[in-house]
């Protein structure tokens, strides 16, 4: 019963609104093709004497230019309120009813009056007013507040483009169950919670659909013009009704409406047409003020807010001078699209334009939909996905039928989008779905650009920037070049200057150039230096940037948003792009964008960032948190800390991917990460990951992880100490010595601070160094020296001092090289000895001129080398204090290691080094003499590795022990050497490769043996396949004389377990970016072996950022490896795209990617390629590394996403790879 009364009530109100003659009310939305089509008719019928449009009074002067026939939409009106106010923005397209109305009025000589509250009015900028006014409202559920009326209420965006988000009604509250009415009928209220929900329920099945679209736009085609006006007024009234019920209309809206009523009152007696937001229309009824404002005390506030600046002249002709700068700028469809982030936009302008062109004809709209669909299909096809006329036809059919099912005269945007998704996207979000979305965006958004009529006054960004620079006391046009040093954290002026300069830089406007400033101790600088100059280029670029905004902040934000859009269009942004975007937004002081980018960083970096990117992002967040970035001082610190915590968790995930690392930087990163994690309590995950690294990682990272565990208190120092000692003990073979070097490097890189304090952890190691027999010590010496080399010279110097102390503080004569001083000490020594003997005390024993302490003497009995000398050798310091033979060792090793890098490498005792060897040959001879031939080779190989080509040449091809490490170091040289030298290296490389390949082939062959003998399908042996036999022989069967059917099984068919295993194709896609050397070599060797299998066609595709197909060299790993240039970035998607071209029979193609998965390009592209390959039916495998230990060094997060996309990722040895290939190919 109540619903019926309510319906009557609604109709009554609606009749009043609709029937009102003075003013004649046209409720609109800012963009509405439906109303734009009918508006001229409506106005012509009413014949107004004056037109009120909902625009602030400040824009009066521009209306003529706006309606000028020379002006092509889209264009935008913008108003900036003095300092502190963001721009108010009114974009207009041909389908904006206001523009249509203004054009009509100008053409017919009807005066136009902007009737919205002037921008200069303080009510616009009083953020608390609204909240304070709303607070007492008791039952405000906030469900249907601002979000709902946004589409209708096109108030200018005050600095917050987000407020003007789409017309998505809040999907909260209980979703009403809906009935499907047998007949089409607009049922208004059926006891539903709100009118809006009632309208929505009657109109569409979709929960995310906005009411205006359903009730006005979708029903407009073919409808009567008056019916459209009525529907629009109804929606506006319904929203207002709900807003009032949900807590009331906001105060700013009441103020604006009060102003509109004043404007109306001024025009009393005339025939006035009011083209205003549908939401405001009910407030303009002659009876409205009384019903609307009593409870709010609005008259009072109105007087305070609006009365002050311009008393009694509400028509805008008298405006507060100088406070509002207005401009008319050309606009583009791209910016008009709501997703661009610019305020007051609409989705898919090109489609709206098409609807406008259709002028309300349902058939024309259907034709426009068909045209759009065909265009989209063409674009999807161009992106490499099948989408032909059949799909287009089905999409159009589906859209029209959906419209019919929902009782609409023609398909709306919603139906079109739904149909396209259903028909074209094929349930694929990643690959195809993305292509379809991109095509839709291109085709529906469009690229129309507006132009201003000739003669329109210049306005916008240029004047705004000139004023800004003047205000900041920075050189303007014609000013001299200037250099400034800014201290933005101390001075507010400098802060504003810095932000402005960053914004100019972001807009590509050549004006300021930052010069590098290095902070104290290499840290981040807190001040900045700029070289400033206004050039003609500045002027030119200001014009270009002007389309993006009328003030610098808006232009910069527009530029950055555009960048983000472009990244998104390319499938990104990547993790590094997101971090860079956050930095840019922060330095430009764009709070909203910074928050958005921060959220992006919080999701993207954990999902796809590598460990170093994550650490980099953490560093940026630290700067933000500490307030070191001047522009972003307002950012809530808790939020930043929360994101930092998320990133820390993400970094912990990456730890598993370090297992194969040989890079000291990774050890440092691990230590830094552990320290961070300690603050939040040691994570279960981190401790488990560290444990895995300790047991399964490379020597370097394993040892580092062990030390980190000890530092975090997870392991006992003593246990670590005994392990460290055991490494030295077991270093008896070349491999073990290599491992020792790696382990020491890793452990010392992390444990450097521990060295100075000693402690249990290092005791074992120190003891070993001092107590080993001479020959054992010397055999390990190069490895030890190599391990300690990771420390900076100064650190090694300090360590040596610690060791001296530890050795008992004995005064080391050898450390003094002044003969006079030495003599003086000698004499003193003698005197002392004499004194001792006089008193019959025992004299300390002396050996070879050294006066060691009691402690040290005890340990050096086993050899000639004293403990102190050993340390000097190991640490590579104080070489000149060494005597005789020891000095020769030091010199030979110094030749390899030099003084090292980092703190202290420039000073110290470089002069103490012996003369360098005249040639590498002599050095090699010396090495052999000192260490023996085995160790000599190790040292020379290390020399080759560190870039000494001549050392590599000394290695004897026939005596050398082939290893991948050696091959790796020699090959790394090949790139930078002249051809003649490479020729001399070739025998060496050839022999190593030959040996390794032979070795590998022996191991791999069993795994592949089944592949060479594919079994024939029809060979008898398996069970008889009865049904096939019958079918196959039906043709030769016959009826016998009795009419009975006789089957003659001429060709029996058997079941066989073997699939026809010929012509399988294996595509090895190998990453040759830096850090992948070992895997490249193993890949080449493995592919050479696999290429020898007859049933397999093996392709070798190398990629970094470019792709090279080396398939023709796959049988000859030597030339293949010499061809490959290791280095450069990583673009896996490109490699895969090429591999896709090699696929002919997907079901029999194996694609194996060997990479560290540190993709340098947007992940979406990569995932798309993986999906595409997977969809086509190929078998995929990702190898995080391919080497004998199967220890991967890779980006865990990316790999995780690849697994989800259908490519399993594993670290494999060549043996396991061959076994995998065998399993795939065999039945």
């Amino acid at each position: 019963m109540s619903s019926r009364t309510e319906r009557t009530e609604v109709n009554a109100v609606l009749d009043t609104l609709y029937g009102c003659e003075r003013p004649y009310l046209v409720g609109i939305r800012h963009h509405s093709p439906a109303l734009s089509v009918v508006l001229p008719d409506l106005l012509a019928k009413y014949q107004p004497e004056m037109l009120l449009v909902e625009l602030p009074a400040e824009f009066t002067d521009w209306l003529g230019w706006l309606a000028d026939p020379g002006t092509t939409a889209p264009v935008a009106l913008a108003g900036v309120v003095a300092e502190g106010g963001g721009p108010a923005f009114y974009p207009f397209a041909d389908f904006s009813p206001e523009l249509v109305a203004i054009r009509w009025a100008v053409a017919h000589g009807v005066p136009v009056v902007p009737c919205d509250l002037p921008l200069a009015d303080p009510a616009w900028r009083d953020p608390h007013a609204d909240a304070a006014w709303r607070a007492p409202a008791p039952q405000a559920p906030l469900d249907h507040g601002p979000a709902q009326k946004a589409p209708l209420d096109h108030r200018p965006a005050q600095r917050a483009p987000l407020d003007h988000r789409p017309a998505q009604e809040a999907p909260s509250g209980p979703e009403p169950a809906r009935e499907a009415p047998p007949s089409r009928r607009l049922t208004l209220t059926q006891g539903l919670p709100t009118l809006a929900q009632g309208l929505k329920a009657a109109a569409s099945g979709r929960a995310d659909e906005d009411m205006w679209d359903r009730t006005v736009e979708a029903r407009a085609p073919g409808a009567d013009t008056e019916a459209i006006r009525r529907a629009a007024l109804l929606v506006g009234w319904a929203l207002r009704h709900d807003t009032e019920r949900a807590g009331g209309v906001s105060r700013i809206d009441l103020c604006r409406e009060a102003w509109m009523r004043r404007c109306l009152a001024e025009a009393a007696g005339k025939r006035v047409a009011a083209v205003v937001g549908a939401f405001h229309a009910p407030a303009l009824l002659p009876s409205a003020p009384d019903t609307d404002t009593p409870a709010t005390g609005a008259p009072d506030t109105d007087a305070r807010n609006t009365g002050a600046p311009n008393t009694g002249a509400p028509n805008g002709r008298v405006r507060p001078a100088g406070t509002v700068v207005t401009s008319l700028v050309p606009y583009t469809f791209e910016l008009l699209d709501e997703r661009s982030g610019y305020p007051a936009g609409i989705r898919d302008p090109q489609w709206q334009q098409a609807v406008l062109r259709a002028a309300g004809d349902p058939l024309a709209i259907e034709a426009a939909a068909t045209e759009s669909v065909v265009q989209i299909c063409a674009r999807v096809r161009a992106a490499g996905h099948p989408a032909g006329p059949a799909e287009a036809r089905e999409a159009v059919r589906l859209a029209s039928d959906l419209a019919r099912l929902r009782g609409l005269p023609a398909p709306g945007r919603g139906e079109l989008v739904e149909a396209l998704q259903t028909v074209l996207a094929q349930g694929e979000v990643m690959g195809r779905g993305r292509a379809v979305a991109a095509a839709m965006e291109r085709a529906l958004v469009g690229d129309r650009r507006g132009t201003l009529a000739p003669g329109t006054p210049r306005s916008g960004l240029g004047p705004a920037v000139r004023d800004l620079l003047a205000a900041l006391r920075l050189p303007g046009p014609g000013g001299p070049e200037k250099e400034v040093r800014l201290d933005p954290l101390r001075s507010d002026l400098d802060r504003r200057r810095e932000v402005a300069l960053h914004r100019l830089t972001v807009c590509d406007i050549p004006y300021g150039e930052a010069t590098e400033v290095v902070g104290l101790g290499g840290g981040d600088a807190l001040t900045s230096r700029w070289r400033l100059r206004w050039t003609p280029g500045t002027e030119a670029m200001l014009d270009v940037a002007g389309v993006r905004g009328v003030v610098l902040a808006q232009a910069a934000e527009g530029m950055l948003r555009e960048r983000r859009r472009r990244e998104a269009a390319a499938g990104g942004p990547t993790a590094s792009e997101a971090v860079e975007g956050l930095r840019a937004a922060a330095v430009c002081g764009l709070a909203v964008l910074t928050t958005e980018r921060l959220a992006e960083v919080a999701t993207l970096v954990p999902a796809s960032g590598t460990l170093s990117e994550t650490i980099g992002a953490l560093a940026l967040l630290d700067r933000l948190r500490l307030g070191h970035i001047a522009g972003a001082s307002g950012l809530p610190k808790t939020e930043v800390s929360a994101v930092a915590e998320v990133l820390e968790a993400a970094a912990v995930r990456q730890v598993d991917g370090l297992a194969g690392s040989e890079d000291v930087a990774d050890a440092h990163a691990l230590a830094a990460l552990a320290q961070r994690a300690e603050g939040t309590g040691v994570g279960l995950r981190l401790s488990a990951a560290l444990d895995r690294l300790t047991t399964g990682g490379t020597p370097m990272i394993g040892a580092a992880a062990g030390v980190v565990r000890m530092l975090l208190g997870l392991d006992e120092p003593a246990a670590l100490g005994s392990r460290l000692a055991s490494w030295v003990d077991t270093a008896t073979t070349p491999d073990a010595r290599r491992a020792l070097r790696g382990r020491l490097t890793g452990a010392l890189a992390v444990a450097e601070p521990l060295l100075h304090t000693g402690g249990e952890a290092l005791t074992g190691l120190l003891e070993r160094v001092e107590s080993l027999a001479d020959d054992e010590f010397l055999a390990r010496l190069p490895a030890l020296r190599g391990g300690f080399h990771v420390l900076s010279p100064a650190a090694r110097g300090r360590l040596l001092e610690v060791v001296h102390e530890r050795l008992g503080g004995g005064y080391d004569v050898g450390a003094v090289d002044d003969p006079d001083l030495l003599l003086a000490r000698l004499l003193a020594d003698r005197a002392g000895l004499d004194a001792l003997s006089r008193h019959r005390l025992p004299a300390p024993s002396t050996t070879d001129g050294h006066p060691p302490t009691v402690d040290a003497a005890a340990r050096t009995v086993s050899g000639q080398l004293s403990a102190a000398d050993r340390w000097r050798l190991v640490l590579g310091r104080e070489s000149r204090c060494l005597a005789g033979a020891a000095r020769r060792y030091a010199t030979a090793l110094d030749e390899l290691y030099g003084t090292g890098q980092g703190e202290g490498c420039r000073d110290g005792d470089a002069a103490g080094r012996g003369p360098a060897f005249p040639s590498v040959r002599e050095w090699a001879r010396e090495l052999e003499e000192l260490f023996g031939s085995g160790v000599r080779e190790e040292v020379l190989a290390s020399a080759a590795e560190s870039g000494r080509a001549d050392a590599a040449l000394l290695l004897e091809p026939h005596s050398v022990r082939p290893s991948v490490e050696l091959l790796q170091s020699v090959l790394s040289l090949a790139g930078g050497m002249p051809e003649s030298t490479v020729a001399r290296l070739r025998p060496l490389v050839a022999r190593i490769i030959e040996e390794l390949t032979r070795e590998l082939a022996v191991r791999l062959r069993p795994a592949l043996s089944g592949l060479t003998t594919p079994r024939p399908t029809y060979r008898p042996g398996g069970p008889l396949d009865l049904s096939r036999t019958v079918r196959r022989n039906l043709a030769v069967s016959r009826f016998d004389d009795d009419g009975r059917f006789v089957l003659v099984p001429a060709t029996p068919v058997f079941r066989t377990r073997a699939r026809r295993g010929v012509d399988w194709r294996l595509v090895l896609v190998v990453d040759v970016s830096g850090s992948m050397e070992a895997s490249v070599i193993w890949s080449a060797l493995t592919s050479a072996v696999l290429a020898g299998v007859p049933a397999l066609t093996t392709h070798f595709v190398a990629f970094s950022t470019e792709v090279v197909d080396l398939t023709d060299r796959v049988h000859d790993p030597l030339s293949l490896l010499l061809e490959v240039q290791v280095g450069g970035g990583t673009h896996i998607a490109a490699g895969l795209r090429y591999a896709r071209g090699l696929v002919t029979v997907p079901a029999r193609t194996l694609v194996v990617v060997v990479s560290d998965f540190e993709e340098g390009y947007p992940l979406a592209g990569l995932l798309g390629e993986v999906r595409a390959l997977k969809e086509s039916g190929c078998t995929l495998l990702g190898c995080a590394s391919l080497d004998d230990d199967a220890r991967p060094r890779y980006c865990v997060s990316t790999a995780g996403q690849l697994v989800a996309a259908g490519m399993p990722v594993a670290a494999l040895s060549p043996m396991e790879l061959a076994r995998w290939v065998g399993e795939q190919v065999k039945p």
Partner: protein
Amino acid sequence: MTTETVERVRQVDPAEHAYADQLAFLAAYDDGPRPPGWRLTPRAVVTFIAGATGVLQLPKGARREGLPARCAIEAKFVGDRALVERCVVTLAGERGLLLVGEPGTAKSMLSELLSAAVCGTSELVVQGTAGTTEDQLRYGWNYALLLAHGPSPEALVPSPVLTAMSTGAVARVEEITRCLPEVQDALVSILSDRRIAVPELAGTEHATVPARPGFTVVATANLRDRGVSEMSAALKRRFNFETVGPIPDLAAETALVTRQAKAVLDRVSTPFAVDEAVVEALVTAFRDLRAGRSVEGWDVERPSTVMSTAEAVAVASSIGLAAAYFPGDRDVLSLLPGHLLGVVRKDDPADGAKLLGYWDGAVRRRAQGGARLWRQLWELRDVITD
């Protein structure tokens, strides 16, 4: 006597039986134009599946014997109404419909309801497995008859698809991606030519079986699960795709899990004695790990395995059974981490680390936030660290 009743009782009633009265009612209620071969109008099909508000009343002229005059139609599929509308319009155009989505999202139920409403039967169904052969999509032979009498229409064993073609009904193919690609491709020609050729009967009128109006195919598939074969592009082009998402609402999912776990325990006549809060914690953990984002918006690493509602039901019932059979042994909550670990690790043992990460992040923070239940779970961390 008892045996007879047992035989008659079905574990699950097909939709056309369970809702026979509603279907009959809707056929009379909405007598608008129907697509060829349809029992109901498209709008009535949508109403049948997505429900109607209030009680519907038959128009005066349509009242008939044996039909209720008023009928309440409840929503049978919890989800987007627009999705149902698109499905119905797709079928009305006689185009193939493919429902995709993660396991446990009621795809099969939707396909059953659609076919029952459209053509009155949901039993023309092919269950896709790796062992499905082309015969099950086209036709096979009764070899005894074939050998005895030669190729004849009597010896031909029609597949559900062939039956649907010859009667103008909806054929259902469940789990189409589990069939081998070459088997799937048998559907390509069926969906484009709309007829099946029987070359063995060449020369007779039975050489081709044309599809009657109304014939179409509803298939369901998991695109992301393991052990599925990819569909060929040609086949994909012949289907409209609809993605069915997981249940959007925590409360709804918790209720569903509780209800189904109760049903499992009912079958063995034991009460479900697990606290609502424990079930909610379980469902929350499942949702967090499934979405890669906790309810609070914290980042969670997603394991590679599918965390479906069905598995949540399985865990809830295991916990319920443990509580029923071993009462007082241990707190039911203490069983939860172990079960979670089992689910997370089932595809890739390395995913155990991701659960550790979940404990480090979301569980720890909730525990710090003071939630008692989550604090208990945090203290149970030893279970998952091995």
